[in-house]
């Protein structure tokens, strides 16, 4: 079974600085999708960024970018120019070939002014 591991329960960053959140996954599939979701205290699930495994180019969405290392099964999220509004739980997720979405345990990001 596929698993998603987020080894950093908590991270902190100074406003305007850059932070990287780690995610690794285990799979035998070659075609899959990876996601980062943000969950603020309201518990709303907000899609931050997604990556198709067949694409070599790393996805970018404004201040958010990923470092996708397919051979290493690694999918880290980089947040540049961190803002106070970035403080939230961040979940890495994997969509398998049965279309189930499997989540990691999350990383709580604190942003200090």
């Amino acid at each position, binding site marked *: 079974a596929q698993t998603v591991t987020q080894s950093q329960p908590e991270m902190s960053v100074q406003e305007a600085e850059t932070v990287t959140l780690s995610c690794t996954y285990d799979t035998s599939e070659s075609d899959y*999708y990876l*996601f980062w979701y943000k969950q603020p205290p309201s*518990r*709303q*699930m907000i*899609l931050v960024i*997604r990556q*198709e495994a067949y694409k070599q180019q790393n996805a970018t969405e404004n201040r958010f970018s990923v470092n996708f290392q397919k051979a290493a099964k690694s999918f880290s999220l980089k947040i540049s120019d961190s803002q106070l509004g970035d403080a939230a739980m961040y*979940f890495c997720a994997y*969509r398998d070939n*049965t*279309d*189930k*979405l*499997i*989540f*990691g*345990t*999350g990383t709580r990001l604190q942003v200090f002014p």
Partner: protein
Amino acid sequence: NAGVTQTPKFRILKIGQSMTLQCTQDMNHNYMYWYRQDPGMGLKLIYYSVGAGITDKGEVPNGYNVSRSTTEDFPLRLELAAPSQTSVYFCASSRRRQGPSGNTIYFGEGSWLTVV
């Protein structure tokens, strides 16, 4: 667009009671999911459905039942509620993952359930 709508948003149940969490989507999505999120934890898949009439178990199905009689609706039934079922429940939906629009999974706002 309403997207994915869950009801109720908040509910307190007594031990042993039963209830149904409703989920409906208006995007004609084939795939629908139910997740639970315990405090400080990630989302665990309870049940999912790939289309009307088809359901399958996820990681934590015990104590729950689902049905999918229409494309739009995917209710989650809790039988004999237990304190361990205190959680936030999320319904989600999507198309098949292939294709430009297949990667987006839409979540409802969550249903907060407390069993006392």
